[in-house]
């Protein structure tokens, strides 16, 4: 039996290797099909992840607010943030607001970290630059307009307050402090000189604040306290987001809230996008399968005479079907492997070009691609082979 099997393999190998040009034609069709399956498959599964990262250009989708009557402490932020997987966390920015006046016009100052705000509010249009050190300020467009200042100008913020015992006044110049002779209370007109490094334009309420560093706001108020609000940007599904929010809220240190308009719309658009890729993949795949089938039909039809000859040499139908099917399956397997590799390369290229980051490799898609292309090729061969083996060898061998 061994010898017979060896001859079987020898025949199939010869057919695949020596009929190279025809096999390449068939193989190409299968490779294209498999590439589309593997490539679009990977893209399909990666679209939500990649796209939700794009949606983060919308900015924060969760906000933390203090529980009744307090401020948000660094510890509370840390423990709340630890609920969110670091791979999904785009960034978070704590805000501390203080009412002050600049050149006698009341202005709300917001103390923020300028590196993290670029993550949570990527849509800010900055004319000029983000402040890079203390003593610098980023003005909202409306504040800048009402102050009549532009980038590069110097302004000074003034904060008047009553000095309490727990304040460290060592950094405050003598001349800013004065005592109310009537009550003996000490007051302070604390001033901070700032350079305008940029003006932020958003079309929204962000334009109504002036942004300085957290150090500066602490210096200006002489009070160390927590934050008023934390903006958090998380690239995840809306289900996950609700879970994180529930979990954070159950801790009770602060109250987390989903920004509904962001998360609701995002889910909707993402679902549409994913089903778009799905349907496109399905349509393209069906058409490519038909293409593979017609190609295989053509390849088999070409060999009717050979099938007739084999029958004349005494082959029974089942052994001919077996031989030709094995050829098809080997072809499908090779095409599937190459297609899976090319599909991965394609998906990777798309991902890097479109989203600027690599695709998540999905190992399961490789065997699926190979199995599907073997099945499709096999099925595509079966019908023409079944037709071909029923031909009368005498007719085929006699010529047209």
């Amino acid at each position, binding site marked *: 039996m061994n010898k017979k099997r060896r001859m079987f393999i020898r025949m199939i190998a010869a057919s695949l290797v020596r009929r190279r040009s025809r096999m390449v034609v068939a193989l190409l069709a299968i490779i294209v099909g498999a590439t589309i399956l593997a490539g679009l498959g990977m893209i399909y599964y990666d679209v939500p992840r990649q796209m939700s990262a794009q949606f983060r250009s919308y900015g924060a989708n969760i906000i933390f607010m203090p529980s009744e009557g307090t401020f948000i402490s660094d510890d509370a932020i840390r423990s709340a943030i630890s609920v969110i997987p670091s791979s999904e966390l785009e960034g978070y920015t704590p805000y501390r607001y203080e009412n002050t006046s600049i050149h006698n016009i009341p202005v709300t100052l917001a103390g923020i970290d300028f590196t993290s705000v670029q993550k949570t509010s990527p849509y800010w249009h900055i004319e000029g630059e983000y402040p890079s050190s203390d003593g610098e300020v980023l003005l909202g467009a409306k504040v800048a307009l009402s102050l009549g200042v532009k980038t590069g100008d110097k302004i000074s913020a003034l904060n008047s307050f009553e000095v309490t015992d727990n304040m460290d006044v060592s950094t405050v110049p003598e001349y800013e402090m004065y005592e109310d002779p009537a009550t003996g209370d000490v007051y302070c007109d604390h001033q901070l000189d700032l350079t305008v490094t940029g003006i932020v334009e958003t079309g929204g309420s962000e334009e109504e604040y002036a942004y300085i560093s957290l150090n500066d706001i602490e210096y200006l108020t002489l009070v160390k306290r927590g934050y008023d609000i934390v903006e958090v940007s998380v690239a995840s599904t809306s289900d996950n987001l609700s879970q994180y929010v529930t979990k954070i809220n159950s801790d009770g240190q602060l109250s987390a*809230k989903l920004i509904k*308009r962001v998360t609701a719309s995002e889910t909707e658009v993402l679902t549409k996008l994913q089903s778009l890729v799905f349907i*496109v993949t399905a349509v393209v795949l069906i058409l490519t399968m038909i293409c593979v089938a017609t190609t295989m039909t053509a390849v088999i039809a070409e060999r009717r005479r050979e099938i007739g000859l084999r029958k004349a040499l005494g082959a029974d139908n089942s052994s001919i079907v077996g031989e030709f099917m094995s050829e098809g399956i080997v072809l499908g397997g090779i095409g599937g492997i190459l297609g899976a590799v090319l599909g991965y390369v394609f998906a990777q290229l798309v991902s890097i070009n479109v989203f600027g980051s690599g695709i998540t490799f999905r190992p399961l898609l490789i065997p699926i691609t190979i199995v599907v292309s073997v099945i499709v090729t096999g099925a595509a061969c079966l019908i023409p082979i079944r037709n071909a083996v029923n031909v009368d060898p005498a007719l085929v061998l006699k010529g047209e």
Partner: protein
Amino acid sequence: MFFTMMKGTFTKQWKKMLMIAVTVALGASIATAMLNVMLDVGDKINEELKTYGSNIVVQPQSEAVVSKLYDLDNDDITVDYINEEKTGELLTIFWHNNITDFAPEIATEVTLPDGETATLTGTWFNHHLEFYKKGMTYERDTGIINLRNWWDIVDGEWLDEQAVEGTLYAMVGKDLADAKGIKAGDELVLTANGVSETVTVKGIFDSGDDESATIYTTLPVAQKLTGKEGLIQKIEVSAITSPDDELSERAARNPNLLSGEERDLWYCTAYVSSICFQIQEAIPEASASAVRQIADSEGKILEKTELLMSLITFLSLLGATLGISNLVTSGVMERAQELALHKAVGATNVQITVLVLTETIITAIIGAAAGYFLGYAFAQIIGHTVFSSSIEMSGMVAFIVAVLIIAVTLLGSIPAIRMILRLRPSEVLHGGH
């Protein structure tokens, strides 16, 4: 004779020709469907993104200049207003078809029966707007029901302006309603500037943001309470826009610096900045600005989606191309014996080549025509399943597909023709195969 031979091919070899035609049709249908979807996906996704709300805000000139920093004490400052009637001007601008929804607003602080204050916003819910200008009538149904489609109605229902005209109704935010124990159907007395109105609460909404602590009512009610009848403070506009590029960024800085040609191109492209510009042209006393948070992310997502679709389209076209040229090649090769016969009886290479090419291209054109309509069907299937709306068919696609198919067919015929030219008639006619 040429035609007789060709007729012979189509009658005797019809099965093979049919197979070529079918493959070409499949390829053409992929190309048609994908190209149309690709060209239309921008608009479709843009419509989906409208769920983000308005991306342009129109405010009075001076309101834009003097900031709302003084929000806390409203009385101290002069807030300018726009005439409510001007809202209709939005329907007259060049890109009016891209404006999907808009709603004018006026807001004020009102005192509730318990003495506490809340923000009241008067706006359109589903207003039927009729606007007359230069003998033309413009009509549109629009309002915040579309602009705030992320609102959850937790109690009652949306305020249907067209059904309850002349009656005093309001919708209350969930946070406020919870705090005050307000339910749908309740009556609420609102007081501002010495004027009182009793409104019926139509529904309680949860917006997931600050708006949940406010009250929304119809424009006339709010105007009456503020004493600013016929006036509004701002208009929220939701428009379908093209992603920003280098031109639009330069234009946003200063439209006057563009060359005439660039300016025309900018004006006639639906950039958020050109739409804002056109709104300002139509309502000179107002200033229109992009809501960056929304305009920017929309642009980005749109750009990514279009790029993604074009790459997928490219792959599908590549697949279709290879499939077609494959089959054309093997289809022609199958006829080697017959073609060798032509050669044996004295046909020149050129004659055979012309014969084969003409036959193949006629087949391809028939296939491509069928494929175009099949592709149309596929595009509509995609449009209706994914976006529940038709995909617009572009004439350009028909042209591209036609050129592509002819090019691919010719390309696919090259190996076959080279083989024909090499054919020695005796080999084929007497050979073992």
